[in-house]
């Protein structure tokens, strides 16, 4: 895992910019660990492109490769970086402005 939350969150958001990588991560989240071949049969993306994206995602620590023979390698989602990105989103979504408006409205009554 990279040393700081900023770098980790950035890797997650960079990964999510690309629609193919979003589709791959979504497929792993919904269907569990899969090989590049499994993913190619489910997604409108070539196996070659999927293998390339999985390599990038593994380097960024967003998926982990299970040990195995090359074509049979299964990839699984590694959730720790997603949780760091979620902390960033949680801070943006806290909505203290809305809550404090509600508090003032309540006390003004």
């Amino acid at each position, binding site marked *: 895992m990279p040393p700081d939350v*900023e770098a980790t969150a950035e890797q997650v958001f960079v990964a999510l910019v690309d629609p193919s990588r979003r589709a791959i991560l979504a497929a792993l989240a919904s269907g569990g660990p899969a090989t590049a071949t499994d993913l190619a049969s489910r997604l409108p993306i070539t196996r070659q492109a999927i293998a390339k994206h999985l390599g990038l995602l593994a380097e960024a620590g967003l998926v982990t490769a299970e040990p195995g023979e090359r074509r049979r390698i299964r990839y699984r989602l590694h959730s720790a970086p997603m*949780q760091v990105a*979620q*902390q960033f989103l*949680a801070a943006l979504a*806290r909505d203290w402005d809305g809550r404090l408006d509600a*508090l*003032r409205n309540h*006390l003004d009554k």
Partner: protein
Amino acid sequence: MGFPDRIERVVDIARPPAKVWAALTTDEGLASWFGDQASIDLRPGGAAQMTFSSGDTVYMRVERVEEPTVFSFTWHIYGLPDDDPRRTYVEFTLEPTAAGTRLTVVESGFAQLPDDAHKTAYDGNARGWASELGELVDYLDAA
């Protein structure tokens, strides 16, 4: 640009600190602006919970109770798994002003990393589930 660890807001409210304090620290007060339903055990270490119209319930742990100037609690970071130990700290500070109360809210802790112990426990869990599911499959295959 940076990862937001801390949220801070200051608002002036045209009510005395005692009124603001009641809105922050009583069941009725919290239920009237924060949650739809609320209950709070107002002492350090006490439990509080709020239910929202969405049906979500949040659980808080009361930390500081220094009437009528400081009230704080910790709660879970939204979106993380329920067993995740990371929590943010929310502190309200009330200062009397000529016009009423100056209320400062600080929520901090969004940028904390999971500690190593938690990471180990978490990875352990993930492996545990994979192997337990594997055992279930073996069991069903054998039946």
